């Protein structure tokens, strides 16, 4: 009895560099090396963006929302534009639908590879980290060549897309995907078979399906716990209803199954990118703006980390009365309490990384 009292500690972890260079602060109740209870404090990078959104007009908010998050920046402007189009009653042209999906899937490939690379970094497998980042660099080059930016693509605008892609650029993207695919194949093989990676990820950070449903988690975290949920399939938008791809589900419920989902999704994204490049119809890329009435609407899309949800309320002026959004990480943080329970303190960073957390977009 006394030994339990001696071995039980409450330790702080963070707020700096828990997995990423973003602040979140964990309070861990540990018994020896084993975690018994987790509580987290966040808010270090709260920027009050929802208040800022009600001081800008609809067009300016496209730029603002793209800056909510870095790795899923495109998903935010995409979903925001969809919400704005729903509230205005706009239909976007078919070419814009395809070009939006193209930008979204390019971002998804880069985002998933980044998270996978960080996992190798946290494990301490530096060469794998470097290798994954090197392969990812091809997609970064694509973004820079096509859109002129490596992070914020600024592709979406209300009514369509800003950047029309020439046939040369489309064939360039196809070439780069062909060049990249064997590299990702190799990385997938490494993550599936390397004993160092498997030793740290397989069977660890468990999120049983029951808890995943209870906590309403989204994205690869949900799909890694056997939940078949994907907005692109459940309520298809843009060009997704016309494109063929599969939803990747894995019922391992551990860190490794979440990584497997992400790596396999990259290949589905390649499929989508190829289909978009080959099938994109000719035509205009933008629809003209409509009169703004007092109305409310919502929209959702599947970002790399899961469902993004936007709600907009207009009051017949060009400045929204309320703009609210919920990012996928917001739903996934609470799952860490389940995943970390009975794990070792040394695994906290790895488990945190497995939900692909984004602090700045959680706090807005």
């Amino acid at each position, binding site marked *: 009895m006394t030994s339990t009292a001696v071995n039980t500690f409450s330790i702080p972890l963070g707020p700096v560099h828990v997995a990423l260079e973003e602040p979140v602060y964990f309070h861990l109740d540990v018994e020896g090396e084993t975690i018994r209870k987790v509580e987290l404090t*966040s*808010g270090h990078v*709260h920027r009050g963006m*929802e*208040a800022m959104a*009600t*001081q800008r007009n609809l067009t300016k908010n496209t730029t603002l929302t793209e800056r909510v998050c870095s790795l899923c920046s495109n998903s935010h402007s995409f979903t925001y534009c*969809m919400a704005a*189009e*729903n509230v205005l009653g*706009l*239909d*976007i042209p078919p070419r814009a639908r395809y070009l939006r999906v193209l930008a979204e899937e390019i971002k998804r490939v880069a985002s998933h590879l980044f998270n996978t690379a960080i996992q190798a970094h946290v494990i301490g497998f530096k060469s794998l980290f470097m290798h994954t980042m090197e392969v990812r660099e091809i997609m970064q080059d694509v973004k820079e060549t096509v859109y002129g930016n490596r992070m914020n693509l600024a592709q979406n605008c209300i009514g369509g897309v800003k950047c029309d892609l020439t046939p040369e650029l489309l064939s360039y993207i196809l070439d780069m995907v062909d060049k990249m695919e064997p590299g990702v194949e190799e990385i997938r093989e490494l993550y599936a078979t390397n004993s160092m990676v498997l030793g740290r990820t397989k069977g660890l950070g468990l999120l049983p399906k029951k808890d995943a449903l*209870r*906590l*309403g988690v989204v994205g690869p975290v949900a799909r890694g716990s056997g939940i078949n949920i994907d907005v692109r399939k*459940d*309520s*298809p*938008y*843009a060009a997704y*209803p016309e494109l063929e791809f599969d939803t990747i589900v894995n019922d391992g419920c551990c860190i490794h199954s979440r990584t497997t989902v992400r790596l396999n999704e990259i290949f589905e994204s390649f499929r989508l990118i190829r289909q978009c490049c080959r099938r994109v119809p000719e035509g205009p890329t933008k629809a003209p703006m409509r009169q703004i009435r007092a109305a*409310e*609407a*919502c*929209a*959702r899309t599947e970002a790399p980390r899961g*469902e993004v*949800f936007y*709600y907009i*309320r207009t*009051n017949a002026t060009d400045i929204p*009365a*309320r703009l*609210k*959004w*919920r990012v996928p990480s*917001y*739903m996934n*943080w*609470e799952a860490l309490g389940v995943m970390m329970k009975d794990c070792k303190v040394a695994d906290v960073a790895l488990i945190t990384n497995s939900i692909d957390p984004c602090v700045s977009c959680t*706090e807005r």
Partner: protein
Amino acid sequence: MQDTINGNQRIIDGLGQCSETGTVHHTVDSFGNAFHWFRLGTPRHLTRAAALLSETGARLCMVTAYNRRHLSEPMQEICYHFEVAGVIYNLTVILNGEWPVVPSITPFFANADWHEREMMELYGINVADHPNPRRLFLDESFERGILNQAVPLSIMMNGASTTDLWERILADREKQS
């Protein structure tokens, strides 16, 4: 565009019974995805509505609190967004009075925890029986309901330069002369 709007008839009927008459409407986006909108006249009906949604396996997507004062109406509203089988059900609750209170829906939806804590700190809405009513993001040194005080930048800038500045310039000029 399709003629019929998708939706679970049991949920639509059930939520319709909780709603104020004439407020239920249904919309569809340009891809055929359905959205159903309900307005509850009083927060008391929220628990019944949440229980119904929970039974049908709904997932809570988001909760939006907002202040109608921005629309020059002295009231607050909360919109709960749920998803069932790819269809969105939006449930708006109108809050009246000086001390707006809503019941916590965490017994039905565990993921409402953060959303409710956020609307407590940003909009000063009281959530009855919340299991963990700590601050979510903002420090205790900030007052509750900080977004209720949000003033549009243009209004803040109006008259931000008071007579003090002008008086100081005049005083400086007198000193020089």
